[in-house]
């Protein structure tokens, strides 16, 4: 059988397969609700988020390796509830009950400058504004 023949035969197969899969999705979608911060490799996306007291932010691991979410000031640490790092496709959520600025990092993919205390690498900032009082 010629290469051309194989090409056409396989092309038909792929066409059928493509139709079977069509209409199911459009690739990576960055959630625009303002309440989702994805854990990609090796960055949070978005890495700046503003929410309101009472909001619950979801942190889905959209990457291919483990990640976690830790507040620099120790307010929360996703590993405690999970019992470890988050595997790909797992989601962790946290409800912010106090206003303030929360600087977060992934302990696997960020490092601290021991002189300045600044974290670099996989880091992000979440600003929590007071509720609608």
């Amino acid at each position, binding site marked *: 059988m010629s*290469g051309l023949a*194989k090409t056409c035969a*396989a092309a038909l197969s792929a*066409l059928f397969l493509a139709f079977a899969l069509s209409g199911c*999705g459009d690739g990576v979608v960055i959630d625009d609700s303002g309440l989702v911060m994805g854990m990609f490799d090796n960055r949070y996306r978005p890495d700046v988020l503003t929410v309101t007291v009472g909001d619950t932010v979801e942190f889905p691991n959209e990457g291919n390796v483990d990640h976690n979410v830790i507040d620099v000031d120790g307010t929360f640490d996703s590993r405690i509830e999970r019992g470890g790092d988050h595997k790909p496709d797992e989601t962790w959520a946290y409800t912010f009950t106090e206003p303030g600025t929360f600087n977060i990092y992934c302990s696997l993919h960020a490092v601290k400058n021991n002189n300045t205390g600044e974290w670099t690498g*996989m880091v992000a900032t979440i600003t929590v504004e007071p509720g609608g009082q």
Partner: protein
Amino acid sequence: MRMRQRPTSMAAVTLAALIVGVLATFGPGPAAAQDGGPLSVDTPASEAPSAWTGETRNVPDDYPTIQSAVDAADPGDLILIQSGVYKEAVAVTTPGLTLRGVDRNEVILDGEFTRPNGVFVTADGVAVENMTARSYTVNGFFWDGVVGYRGSYLTAVDAWVYGIYAFDSVDGLFEHSYASGSWDAGFYVGQCNPCNAVVTDVVAEFNGLGYSGTNSSTNMFIVNSEWRHNVAGIVPNTLDSELLPPAENVVVAGNYIHHNGETERAPNRAAEWSAYGNGVVLAGVRDTVVRNNLMVNNRSGGVQVVSMIDATLWPSGGNEVRDNVIMGSGRADLLMGGPAEQGSCFAGNDASSSVPGTLELLHNCDGINLPMWYGLATSSDPLGRIAQAHHGQNPQLEHGDAPKPELRFDQLPGGLDAEVVPAVDVFNSLNFDPAALVTPELPDGMEIDSRRATIFGVVLGAGFWPVLFGALMWWVPALVWIIGGFWALIKMWLGSGRESMGTGARAFWTLLVVAIPVLGVLAFALLGNRGWGVGRRLGTVAGGIVVWLAATVGALLVGGVF
């Protein structure tokens, strides 16, 4: 690398690609954008000093730990580390440092299977030289978000994710180094464009992948190295989990790639397993050159060009595979598959087999290159491997169970007196001529493996899922064309068509059935076979398609591919 299976909307793209394929015109093969030499691109400014300060921080004489020396250092200092086992995870946030061990095999950073990264650098221009990192839970040596990096004479053993790794970093060099025991990749350069990076004279073994490069593009050279006994050898790829897709303009040249296809000695997960047994896989990669490599006894293929199905479908295309020496491949020396692959070409390879069968004839870089997108004959195998992994059929190793190398690796030339050079303007400073790379010589006494038992490109011993997917995605369409074609010709020329069809009509249908495989047969069965009633024709064709589609999609679903 990990292939994620999210549904995607690609019918329109696929249909368009098919139309292009059916309306194929003949023309010369496209040259990859990066024809083997460096492209002229700018390097971002580095924050590191370009010269050593003259200051040396001695560990442990002046500082008890590597981290304490690093914290005390000024930009451009040398951290000189004496022999010993350092149970640390070192974070480097000061630019322009050089971390140097006095003995590569006796300066050992030990993660003890609990610490994440051996040396983690987030500052520009840091060079790490002449030491070993072992047993870290994430990476051995890791540069993240930097301009300028260099890893020389490094050994990474049992770094669980990546051995030696640069992410979101440009202007770098990995050289004279070794990595083993990582489930993802021994060497990894990810998310950069232009990367301006070279991986040269390294050895990777007993990893999921020897080299992985997700979304790493332009002036990305993987050269002059040895990749052996991994699940797969060198795998540039495109994924949605990192920025800057797709991967393009990569050069893989002058490497010795052999005996990949490890089952019991290399850790892996689903995506690594999907590349099983191949020397080089271009997965959703564009305009890349694979040339002058020696590939021997890889359990599946020498070079496999396929599309990548992630959240987005990433077709491969415009790649150039030439002048490689490939032998002893289990399935075929050269493989290309889709869906939607278009424009890659092959030329001058010393290879004896391919899937599909005449790649170098119909997709020649120097002659005819049919602009057709390739189908699933090749892709059925990685899809089947994903199903195997989904069902736990890829052999697993625990962290630390991969074979250990003897720590007798080459030392940094010059030792303590070697020149101290921060990693600034690394790429432009290299005395590097890719055009000078030649194909490695076959070692004396190397026994060449026999090709594994295959039928129409499907390895019979590959296991249930690869064979099932090969049967559904390749054997069935092929049989429809062959057997259906004979049936149509008999109908036309010996059966009822002899009386009901004119000579012109029979000639037309003959051409269609022969020249447009499967589609021609289906068209004849539906429109040309007037001996059957309309209902029977519709039922036969539509029923056949529905049954095939249901079986294929069902197998993919049960296999966990989607």
